[in-house]
């Protein structure tokens, strides 16, 4: 069952930036996705995520909408300025779809409603990575 996700350039594991202030959720996702061959960088806040993105490249970012220091939309704006071609998936609570749709209008790839199943999330990440690769190729 453990496949190896590929990076934007088609070489090495898929590099995923996971941003969520719910530490327990962050930790378990990191472990499970890691086990599925992704190179996961789990960050508990928006500001830290921006710092991490400055230092490293990622194929896909998954950002929680509601966080303590910066909310997902603000993080998305910064991400899109820094790395416009990197697909960003928004995680949102049920009932906050309106904000998530605003995120899509600002350049997010798509949104998923929490709690979502791991398989659903991974499928969406793969889809985004593939779309991201296409964009990168065109660039």
């Amino acid at each position, binding site marked *: 069952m453990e496949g190896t996700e590929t990076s934007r350039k088609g070489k090495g594991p898929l590099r995923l930036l996971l941003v969520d202030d*719910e530490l327990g*959720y962050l930790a*378990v*996702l990191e472990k*499970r996705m890691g*086990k599925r061959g992704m190179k996961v960088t789990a960050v508990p806040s928006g500001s830290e995520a921006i710092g991490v993105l400055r230092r490293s490249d990622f194929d896909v970012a998954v950002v929680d909408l509601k966080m303590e220091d910066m909310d997902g939309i603000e993080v998305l704006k910064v991400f899109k300025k820094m790395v416009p071609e990197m697909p960003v998936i928004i995680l949102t609570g*049920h*009932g906050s*779809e*309106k904000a998530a749709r605003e995120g899509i209008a600002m350049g997010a790839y798509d949104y998923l409603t929490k709690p979502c199943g791991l398989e659903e999330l991974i499928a969406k990440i793969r889809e985004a990575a593939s779309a991201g690769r296409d964009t990168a190729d065109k660039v």
Partner: protein
Amino acid sequence: MEHARHYQPIKISILLYVVLVSITPLVLIMTIAGYSFHTAYRDKVEVQLVQLVEKHRQTVNSFLNEKGADIRVIAHSLSFAQLSDDSALAGILATLQEQHAGVFVDLGLVNQKGEQVAYAGSFKLARADYSTADWFKQAKGREFYLSDVFLGLRGLPHFIVAVRVPFAGQNYILRATIDFVAFNELVENISVGETGLAFIINSRGEFQTKPRVDLSSEVPAILDLIKKNIDLAKERAKAAESVAVPAYKSQERLPVHFFTHRPDKGSSVISVMTPLKGGDWVLVFQQEEREALARLYQTRMVLAAVFLLGALAIIAMAFLLSRRVISRIAQVDTEKEMMNERVIEAGKLASLGELAAGIAHEINNPVAIMVEESGWIGDLLEEKEFGDTDNIREIRRALAQIRTQGGRCKEITHKLLSFARKTDPTETEVDPNALAEEVVGLSEQRAKFAQVKVEAALADGLPRIRASASEMQQVLLNLLNNAMDAMDKKQGGKITISTRFADGMVVFDVADTGMGIPEANLQRIFDPFFTTKPVGKGTGLGLSICYGIIRKMGGKITVNSAVGQGTCFHIHVPVSEQKGRPETSLV
């Protein structure tokens, strides 16, 4: 009853104000118009009567002057020998009678002692002695004298015109008797209506003409009136003199006057009088006021009737108006109360919604972690080191159960959040079937309690609709809730929510097997505040809001119902014109 008591003072105030404001001008107009008409009419009647009396005064005066002048002419133009000769007198009398149609009854010459020395006439009065007669005494010292009416020696009413005839140092008197009947006719002819009559009375209260009815009992009152009249005339004359207008110069020209008095018989009488014969006689015309002013009284009755009808109409209108205003106020108050109730209810629901949303959010994260952690255990169990023992299998089963229950928790929190979230009016593209399914899911629990089976019959391949998902959800939930309320509480029933495509629109049909809606109510179910639920149970706004939402979307909502069989609502919603990327997680 409480309401009626509450509105009673307002109702009475409105009633009083309307009546007061409307009737006051009416009373003023009636009073002013009535008074003006009354005065004008009385003035007119007075002028008419005064003219009548004045005319007759002139007639009577001319009669008397004429007869006096005739006798004077005879006295001065004939010789004493002719005047003292019976046959000559008879000739003159015949000429007079011929000229004056029998007004002169007889002629006589009376010497200084009162003995009649010559006589012509039909009575046996030759050599009659008048030395003690009142008229003789009065006439003796005067050049001309006109007596009052008296019976005299002949025993018939008459009066005398006497002219002094000096001859041989003695003063003789030529006297002529004027026929009372002829004189009486002059005044008797003054007759107006049934009660208008005229007479002449002297200052001692003796009638000089015979009134048509017996007035002897009223003589003192008439004399009193005459006295007042003369006083008033003198006052006026003095006032006129003071401004240098010589109006009161001649006794004969005393102005006529108009008096109303109320004799004991109970009716008012209008009296107009004028002096005659230098004030010795007074010509009086009397008419009962009710007859003289009959037109005035008739008009007054008409005015009174108009006033009465007007007042009644005003009171009736005021009553109706106050009742209508009060009923409107009561309706507005009721609507306000309902709105207040609804606002309070909405407030409660909003608080409850926020609370539920908060709890759901808080639960979501731990549940997500639990599910993921169990997944992680599952991942680890895949490692070879754990093998495939019974215990491992049991652990895997337990993990699967945790994931299943985690999924249930997710469902529950989703429903809770769907219910609690605020209505978002933003229109998006909505999958009609997903919407219908979600609404069925949301009403599952309530349906279970109400023993109602909710079924969805969804058509495949429906286009998306352009609508606010939360508002559409509100509409469908409202219809479902109403349908459940319409079911028998013990027997339950069935609700079918189906989707279809018709006439370029997506149609949602919500059909129940409830009690149905009577024909009379069917027209009113979309009216605001129309409810058949008991007081406090329904605001009567649900269907009205649904109607508004669907109309706003450009759709329509219709209903079919049969009492005892059930009701079916049809919601027609326009399809989306955009063919953009479908939104996977909408609804």
